[in-house]
């Protein structure tokens, strides 16, 4: 029996008898969305799109001092198909933009994006002919992290914010339906 039908059976019986009385504390009842969200938030698999200085700070986050595995996000995947959290760490240039978009498109739903650092968020102090003025010109972003580069704590904070989003909201794959990036209809 799958989780959904098992939960619904429990729910239908509950009108007659409180299941906790019947089964003690061996069964926890919850809503399906909560159960799924709980699973999602505790095992986010990041795909690190690291290009520059911020990627070095990401190395620190992954190393043992800051230890991203405390938050269940240590399984760093470099294949977009296996990841659900994209961390864009570093400057994205116009040359890099189509690659970033392609990799974002290759990630399957559900997926979230963290823009790490000033360059990814706004182009940073590279206001010139080569740097994309923020990755949100080509892909939708869920959480921005300031800093050049941000400290590891800041990235962990972003991860917690994503976890909060995941936990509190039912995942809506169409939440960026209105988003049109600069490379969407070229």
């Amino acid at each position, binding site marked *: 029996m799958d989780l959904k039908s098992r939960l619904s059976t429990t729910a239908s019986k509950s009108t007659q008898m409180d299941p906790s009385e019947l089964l003690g504390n061996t069964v926890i009842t919850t809503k399906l969305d909560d159960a799924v969200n709980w699973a999602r938030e505790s095992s986010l698999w990041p795909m690190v799109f690291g290009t520059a200085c911020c990627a070095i700070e990401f190395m620190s986050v992954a190393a043992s001092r800051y230890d991203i595995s405390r938050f269940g996000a240590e399984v760093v995947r470099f294949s977009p198909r296996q990841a659900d959290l994209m961390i864009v760490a570093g400057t994205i240039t*116009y040359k890099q933009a189509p690659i970033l978009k392609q*990799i974002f498109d290759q990630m399957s739903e559900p997926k979230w994006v963290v823009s790490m650092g000033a360059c990814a968020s706004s182009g940073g102090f590279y206001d*010139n*002919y080569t740097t994309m*003025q923020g990755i949100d010109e080509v892909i939708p972003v869920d959480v921005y992290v300031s800093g050049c580069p941000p400290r590891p704590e800041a990235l962990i904070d972003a991860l917690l914010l994503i976890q909060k989003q995941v936990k509190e909201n039912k995942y809506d794959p169409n939440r960026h339906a209105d988003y049109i990036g600069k490379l969407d209809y070229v």
Partner: protein
Amino acid sequence: MSSSLYDSNIPITSQYTKLFTYIKALKIEQKNNSIYIEVLQSKIVMSLQKAFGEGFTYLSDITAIDYSIHPLLQPQSMALVYVIRHKDFKDNLVVKSYIDNKNEVPSVMNIFQSADWLERETYDQYGVVFQNHPNLKRVLNHQQFVGHPLLKSYPITKGQLCDESDTLLEEMNVQLFEKELITQNEDACYNEPEKDLMFLNIGPAHPASHGTIRTLMALDGEKIEAAVSEIGYLHRGFEKSCENHTYSQIIPYTDRLNYCSAITNNVAFCKTIEEMLNITITQRATVIRVMIMELSRIMDHLVCLAALLVDMGGLTNYWYIYNPREKVYDFLSKLTGARLTNSYMRVGGMAHDLHEGWKSELENVLKEVDSGITQALSLIEHNRIFHDRTQNIAVVSAEDAIKHSFTGPNLRASGVSFDMRKNNPYYGYETYDFDIVVGSVGDVYDRIMVRFEEIRQSSKIVQQAADKMPEGEINVINNRVVLPKKELVYSSIEGVMNQFKLTYEGIQVPANEYYGSIEATNGELGFYVVSDGSGTPYKLKIKSPSFMAMSAYPKIIEGAQIADAILALGSLNLIAGEMDR
């Protein structure tokens, strides 16, 4: 621009009198260890050939200067600059030539093999056409880019969208044709290869390619028959940004060149500008710079080795080697306020003095580093897998290393003992007791082991510098260069004016052209600066060690296997920030 400012006791030019009887130079000038000559456009190739024959066999850099809005009258609006180094690695020869409006010059690839990518870059950025160059296409900007961004007429913020990456197949076909793996039909189109070749694209978004390097390989089984690399994915317009910021504002930009050892870049830049201003920094500042630079060298090598060993599958090493780096971060955060991009140096000195208790903290850091690399080495030093995977892989001979213009640990691993700290000592490096680490084969193993040993040697220098740290001021006393003390700014009109002028107008560097370099972590990091007397450089070009190493990479991996190619890439320590700029 008088040479008297920079006269040393023995004029260098006298050693090369023979050379200058061959080269009809319009101007000869000597500043520190560099001789600056100007030749006619028609004499560029001949002059470089003669210089090559007289021992200037190492090409450092090629760039162009767009003089179209320079305040001083210039013979032509475009000039080319070649920086070449003598084979004893002591002296530089900077050959400059004004070129006419056609912007066409012959390629010098037949003299210097490493001119390949440098000429492509000059074409990309300035539109100078190098005749007879086999593959004159863009290298930093994307294929759909129109115009040449470093021309003064190109607006700095004019970005151009790119929606499709280069297939690189054109270059690949040329290579395969040269190797007789494919044939051409009568319409000069290429036929399908007879051999069952597989094409594999690695990067730019690949964990082992550091996010920014792309290589297309033609594989016969696991063997790489031909390879083409593409860079520029992290080209952030450093040089154009520099032309639009004051000298002090450039310091944070230099941090992000080689972001693994930010302070070294600060020093390289500040030292160049100080030499242009003819300033000598204080004793204490010199020793602090040496100490922090060597500490940066340690932390840069740590991150290179940690990442490389992860690429090899040795994850445990990562924790052993990376944790000491965290300790260095702690020290630097306390000293400079930032972990990675410190912006600690200033022209004329540095932002602030060492903090209380620095010495014991530093000694603890060195202990951690030593125990980290000892533990990592105990895992790999006698490890058969490690040896098999690194020894005799991606070998670069000493001769090839010079042809490719390798520098730093990569060059030394090939057995060439060039280290500017010994060959061209600055900041009193001749008074420190340390060795140049040299490899014997030039394979991946040597490049790794040279870095491990360099960490030990740098630790020795840090310790010696800490022990002899002199007391005194950290900044030179010069109102035109160093910001006034805050007490003065808040209490006197002169102080306010001084602060305002220096911040708003920048440090006024007299009109000059100068090439300055130091031994950074990856090798010789040089700045070619053209100043026009204002607070902003007219032009600034970086001689980037990683750029040269990367241009040789496709050749190095020919005949190797994919797994070896990954290690070869890691062992060259290519830092995209400084490679693509």
